[in-house]
């Protein structure tokens, strides 16, 4: 066998998950990449259109163009986009400025010069015809929608213009707002969605309207009025919208229309809706960080080394502020602000890519939905437990000999935008790591850039790959 064939044959046997990923999943930045991207370049909602553009070119589920149902005259704020969701090439934009010319007023999106209906993947022949027939049927139905569907507060139209179109929408409506089926159909799923990326309940209902058109309703409360297998009619109440997990005024509600997508694809599509919702949350969290940054914070130890400062600006860019604070053994460690203890105990950081070789006691305090402070390397005499409510300056533990730095002190860090729950602080987060230049000469009294070198925890090899 020729040597090039050797590798080819080996590649033929690669892990099935990569084959599945490349062949069946949509090509879209991973959640982590999305978050990283958002962190780097401020919060933007326009990428909804970008996502659509990507989806438009994905093979497994035909999703060529997108229509973005958006704001209306009734005061709701889909995605709170601020008009930033301009259409990109190859998509149809139904954002605020274009909503008035939506098909309800006779401007059929299929006539749009911007639209590119792309048939992709395996869809061809009879399947393609089936999709086209289903979409035509759907569009005929959609033309008749009254303004109060699916909720009394939302006015939108969502005709499909090609195989794989889908509309997504997130609206702030009062908790308990009735959500209705937008068309006759059959419920194919009603239950809790495994929203691993969300720190909130995510009940969804999926309704099949014809052989290739479905709608999905996300962010519903537990009191769902239908179950899988139920036939529903247009306008029928199927559930109630849920209060935002951020306890903000209003609720999240999302709806998607998909074509020719089996159930698992629907869930996948809804995950994208979730990502969009998460963007909304990120923006809200950014506000929380800004508000928090203005507070008069308490230093984590009474006598802070020279040069110590809260780098709260990093919290807005998805970064973190991490620093090793040398302190005598037994020095009181204080929470920098009011908050709730979300972790207190031993934590093995080996798998956290922190470049710290060992574990230690760790206390994490949640100050609001966006900001956490973390204290790592605390002595065994931890003064708080998970769930405790703290006031700024309260002693939470004492500094110890830190095995990772060969000196007494502890690691202090702030976490900001980019994490959803405390869990994600320790699973998804890929921070820059501050390490001592010289461990053996680390008995410093002051902290400055000279004392630390910032290095990625990634290996050289990984850096090359990324």
């Amino acid at each position: 066998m020729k040597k090039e064939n050797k590798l080819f044959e080996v590649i033929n046997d690669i892990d099935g998950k990569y084959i599945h990923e490349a062949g069946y999943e949509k090509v879209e930045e991973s959640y982590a990449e999305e978050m990283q991207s958002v962190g780097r370049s401020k919060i933007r909602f326009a990428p909804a259109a970008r996502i659509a553009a990507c989806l438009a070119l994905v093979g497994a589920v035909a999703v060529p163009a997108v229509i973005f149902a958006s704001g209306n005259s009734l005061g709701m704020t889909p995605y709170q986009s601020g008009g930033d969701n301009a259409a990109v090439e190859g998509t149809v934009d139904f954002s605020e400025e274009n909503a008035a010319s939506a098909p309800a007023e006779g401007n059929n999106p299929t006539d749009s010069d911007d639209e590119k209906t792309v048939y992709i993947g395996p869809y061809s022949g009879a399947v393609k015809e089936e999709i086209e027939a289903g979409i035509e049927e759907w569009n005929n139905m959609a033309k008749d929608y009254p303004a109060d569907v699916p909720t009394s507060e939302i006015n939108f139209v969502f005709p499909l213009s090609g195989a794989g179109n889908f509309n997504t929408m997130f609206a702030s409506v009062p908790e308990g707002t009735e959500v209705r089926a937008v068309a006759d159909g059959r419920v194919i799923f009603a239950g809790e969605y495994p929203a691993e990326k969300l720190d909130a309940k995510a009940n969804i209902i999926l309704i099949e309207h014809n052989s290739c058109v479905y709608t999905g309703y996300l962010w519903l409360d537990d009191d769902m009025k239908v179950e899988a297998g139920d036939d529903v009619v247009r306008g029928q109440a199927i559930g109630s919208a849920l209060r935002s997990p951020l306890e903000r005024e209003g609720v999240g509600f999302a709806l998607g229309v998909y074509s020719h997508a089996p159930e698992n694809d629907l869930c996948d599509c809804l995950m994208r809706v979730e990502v969009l919702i998460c963007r909304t949350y990120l923006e809200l969290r950014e506000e929380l960080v800004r508000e928090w940054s203005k507070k008069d914070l308490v230093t984590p130890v009474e006598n802070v080394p020279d040069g110590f400062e809260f780098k709260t600006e990093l919290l807005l860019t998805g970064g973190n502020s991490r620093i090793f604070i040398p302190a005598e053994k037994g020095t009181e460690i204080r929470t920098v602000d009011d908050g709730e203890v979300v972790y207190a105990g031993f934590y093995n950081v080996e798998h956290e890519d922190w470049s710290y070789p060992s574990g230690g006691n760790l206390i994490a305090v949640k100050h609001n939905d966006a900001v956490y402070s973390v204290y790592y390397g605390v002595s065994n005499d931890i003064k708080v437990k998970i769930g405790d409510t703290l006031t700024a300056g309260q002693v939470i533990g004492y500094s110890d000999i830190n095995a990772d730095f060969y000196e007494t002190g502890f690691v202090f860090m702030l976490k900001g935008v980019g994490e959803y729950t405390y869990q994600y602080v320790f699973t998804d987060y890929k921070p820059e790591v501050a390490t001592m230049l010289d461990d053996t000469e680390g008995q410093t009294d002051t902290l400055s850039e000279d004392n630390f070198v910032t290095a990625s925890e990634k290996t050289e090899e990984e850096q090359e790959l990324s």
Partner: protein
Amino acid sequence: MEDTEIIRLFQQRDQQAIEEASKKYGGLCNAVTKNILHNSQDAEECVNEALWRAWESIPPQKPEVLSAFLAKIAKNIALNRYKADHREKRGGGEPQAVLDELENLISEGTSVEEETERRELLEAVNGFLKKLPRKKRIMFVRRYWYCDRITDIGARVGVSENNVSVTLNRTREALKKYLQKRGF
């Protein structure tokens, strides 16, 4: 229908399994076989054969990733057919281009006929893929597993053809270094 349900149908010897698998993954398999054979009828035959082979092999097998399981069978059938068609001459089309691109990435001495070494090489390649950013990984797998054309990959991931070429080139170089460090 969920994969687990389809597999359960296979295990229960319910022929609806084939129908459901075909409905869900037939297109995917077809895309793979067509990439290799460039002939719709041949590609379709390979897919049908793959489905029947799956029927014969489940049980006892219980694939972890059904899509990959079916696609791999289909691909192997298509490759065998491709090899038979091109036995006497250097082949053309995407498979040959892919082979050319993979040339010289591993040393002459590597003997993948040796099961141990083959397994180690496979582990290394999987490890490499794991470390790749998702988008690059998809590009790589689409090119070197699915034998997609560069143009099609660009359309799929939403980047230019040139971007795909450059990315693949760099990824190959990275793979070469990665494998060299591990003695391949």
